[in-house]
């Protein structure tokens, strides 16, 4: 019944036996113990569960863990390297891009991909780029500011 999967998560190799129906979000949170990605809805709208699968953001509550077999996953816990915050994290902190913080791990992952794909996004491109992530606290203004700030930093 259970299936073996091998994944690389935040740089670490893992092998686990999982039920086919185990959702990737539950695998990350409950099997591995990475509590950063959150569950805010179940219809892949809110994006709180966003992680990077082979470098591309996906909503881990709409994926099965078995679909990630053999793949590389990065969660919010893997953003900072050597104790240094990722520029996206730093920008959200500086610009007050979060309040309750529940959507933040997903926002950070989406932002990282957004500025990779579009290093100098306009406000409108940022707002459209964040369509897969709901935030109920910030009204998005400081998030937009943070994305711009992170893009400027990463783009040099």
């Amino acid at each position, binding site marked *: 019944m259970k299936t073996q999967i091998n994944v690389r998560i935040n740089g670490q190799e893992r092998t686990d036996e999982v039920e*086919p*129906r185990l*959702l990737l979000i539950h695998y990350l949170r409950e099997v591995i113990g990475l509590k950063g990605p959150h569950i805010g809805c179940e219809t*892949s709208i809110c994006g709180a569960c966003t992680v990077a699968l082979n470098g591309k953001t996906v*909503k881990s509550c*709409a*994926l*099965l863990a078995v679909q990630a077999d053999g793949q590389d996953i990065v969660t919010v816990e893997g953003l900072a390297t050597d104790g240094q915050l990722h520029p996206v994290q730093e920008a959200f902190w500086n610009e007050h891009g979060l309040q309750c913080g529940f959507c933040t791990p997903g926002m950070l992952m989406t932002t990282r991909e957004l500025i990779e794909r579009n290093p100098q996004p306009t406000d409108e491109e940022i707002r459209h780029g964040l*369509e*897969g992530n709901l935030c109920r606290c910030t009204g998005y203004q400081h998030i937009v500011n943070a994305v711009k700030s992170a893009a400027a930093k990463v783009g040099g």
Partner: protein
Amino acid sequence: MIPQEFNYSRPGTVQEAVDLLADNDAKVLAGGMSLIPLMKLRLSAPEHLVDLGRIPDLTRITENGGCLHLGALLTHHQVATSALVQEKCPLIAETAAHIGDAQVRNMGTLGGSAAHADPAADYPAALCALEAKVRLVRRNSERLVDIGDFFVDALTTDVEPDEIITELILPVEEAGTGVSYQKLRQPASGFAIVGVAARVRISGGKIAMARVGVTGLGATAYRATGVEALLEGSEGSQDDVAKASAAVDEGVDALSDLHASSDYRRHVARVFTARAIQAAL
């Protein structure tokens, strides 16, 4: 919100996949963007999932005989950003960029969207306007289905339980063809309340070819042949476009839901048909 139990197979080839489907009462998993939420809500409870996610043949983009062959497992992001697709079949690339959000586009697939046949999905409008052909493969045979015969009803297609979609075949646009996809977004889901895909080619000051595909208005996406007939041969003036667009809902049993009544849907279908044609001209 957790799916019911199921068996899981992940074939490496199309042959393995169709064998699994022939031998089991199974459902196909592509990107899962439609199926997995339905399974979580327990509106779908397959006993066996055949995951097509690792079949290299299904993510190819090739040009052959004036057609673009798009593997069914290409993600919306791949379709939207492929330089070849953008050049040869810009309408499908433009439409792909309108679907869902960044994460959904990274995971959702062309074939998955077609097979799910959501009446509000974006792709079907473009597939209709492009007169796409769908290649369906089963254990010992395969067939090509015209898109007009493919969408049978809401959430229902011509695909048999033991078949998989391997590719969609789209025409390479001739020079001088303008295209556009215009949609009114349902604010919550991001799906189309109405979406209209248009292809128009002008020759000698007249519209020589017009194709219009519509999603969201009826139970299935369709080609608005009435609009096309009125456009072809006209000069494409604002008046011509308005007159032609008024025919978009002819014979369509318009949907009505929380987000838009059937009357409003008919009206915005005309508005967005005109906008798509104008943008394509």
